[in-house]
């Protein structure tokens, strides 16, 4: 059963992956140090399909793409937050890590609670509380990137100008 990893406001990229660990491009190595200092248990216990729920301005700080890569490589299926920092949002979408904005979502969930996330139907279901949330839809351009599994896959098939 997938679980929720809950975080607060203003989680920065140094917390997601400290600078001294991102001297590599290996996703597995990055995942091994994801939230290394603030949630040391995360990299050991996070399972494929788990999700992160956070407050405002998730991913603030540096432009390091190592941050969303480490989260994705740790098995996280999606991050849902009240809001995201700009560069982190672009990076996540670009590498195919789904990011959803639901304002106030962090107040509805507990850390460790079980969850079902259906990306095709766009639904988040809290299994213990039997509470359902609809995931917001993206602007068409962003939707195309997500559907393709990231901007790299998309650009293999299309020119950038065709997309807007």
């Amino acid at each position, binding site marked *: 059963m997938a679980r929720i990893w809950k975080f607060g*406001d*203003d989680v*920065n990229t*140094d*917390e997601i992956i*400290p*600078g*001294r660990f*991102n*001297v*590599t*491009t290996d996703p597995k190595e990055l995942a091994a140090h994801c939230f290394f*200092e*603030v949630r040391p248990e995360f990299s050991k216990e996070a399972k494929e399909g788990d999700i992160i729920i956070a407050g*405002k*301005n998730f991913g*603030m*700080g*540096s*432009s*390091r*793409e*190592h941050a*969303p*890569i480490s989260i994705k490589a740790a098995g996280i299926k999606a991050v849902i937050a009240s*809001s995201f*920092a*700009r*560069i982190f949002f*672009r*990076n996540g979408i*670009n*590498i195919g890590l789904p990011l959803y904005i639901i304002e106030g979502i962090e107040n509805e969930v507990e850390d460790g609670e079980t969850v079902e996330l259906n990306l095709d139907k766009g639904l988040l279901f809290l299994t213990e509380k039997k509470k359902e949330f609809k995931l917001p839809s993206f*602007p068409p*351009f962003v939707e195309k990137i997500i559907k393709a599994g*990231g*901007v*790299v896959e998309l*650009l*293999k098939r299309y*020119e*950038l*100008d065709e*997309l*807007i």
Partner: protein
Amino acid sequence: MGTIAEEIFSRKIGRPVEAGEMVVCDVDYIMSHDSTTPLAIEALNKMGKPIFDPNKLVIHLDHFYPAPTINGAILHQRINKFVVENQIKNFFKQGVCHQVTIEKGFVYPGGIVVGADSHTCTYGALGCFGTGMGSTDIAVSYATGKNWFLVPKTIRFELYGSFPKRVYAKDLILHLVSKVGAGGATYMACEFGGELVDRMSISERITLANMAVEMGGKAGLIKSDKKTEEFLKDRVKLKWEHIAPKNPKYEKVIEVDVSKLTPLVAYPHRVDQVKPIEEVEGTPIDCFFLGTCTNGRLDDLKIAAEIIKGKKIPPDRRFVVTPASNEILEAAEREGILKIFRDAGAVVCNPGCSLCIGRHQGVLAPGEKALTSMNRNFIGRMGSPEAEIYLASPATVAISAVNGAITDPRRAK
């Protein structure tokens, strides 16, 4: 017509565009460094496309150069290979990427520069739309010479008055970040203007623009003027036109009179947690650091040197001075400034990101405290997560280094 951001995008695209529009647009230059280039190379390879124009790429080794670890050396090896294979001529190992990108003439009014580093917003000090992105975004520009942008709304900072003694642009930007909050300008451009900014040097303007991202800003923009022209004279060969807002509509206008501003310190672990220096004065500090793209320029070094001249730092403390670029290092050397620091007991490092990124030239031990002229004090940024980082102006760093504890720079003679 519009804000500086709208003016730049309108000029570039050849029709009027407004905040909120999504556009695909040519970029003038694509900046990346040793920490972010390797992932961009990987993304480009996965796309299976050639580089659109190698002359648009500007690559720096600065975050850990020369490499202090085997992993770092491997990344440098990969970048060297990429640079040689693709005949990239804009390749530098001369200091912090932002400072060197500006000095070498890749930044000018009306330009658009994307950079794989969040502090790319620095370029707005010269009226250029610089914005930070991730490595995959940078690879998109490598392959296409373009990128997609949401034309941002703008927060205008209307700044006036004169700085009191030993109060600087750094204190002002810390004040603005604390006022707006770490996420207060997310997705927006920050425009700095007013008679104070008109009077500021290019270096001071760079300090303001550099920290726009600390409030979430996408860019930190300042209109160009005679000073911009003077600064760019021998650096940019290309013809450029001045940029300024024209009948702009701002999302918000924040007015600040700096005449009553006092020296400020951002305390651990957030840039928007700012206190007047009186409230933290006396806090013992282990490591003092002067440098970075925020405050590692010649004027910063001069201010600090004047304060520290003839004095010594306590034997159990360390003071690291890292000029932001070779150009600055050489000028400081010529003026005898670096000797003043060495005589005071400081170590002067080769230009680069240095202690700001916690990967080389000295890191913090658990329990240690640092006072620095850099732009971020996030947990673990300079080494141990059990260390604490305080941010302040070069003057505050210098006088505090003499005393081994946070000290009000207004006390310095």
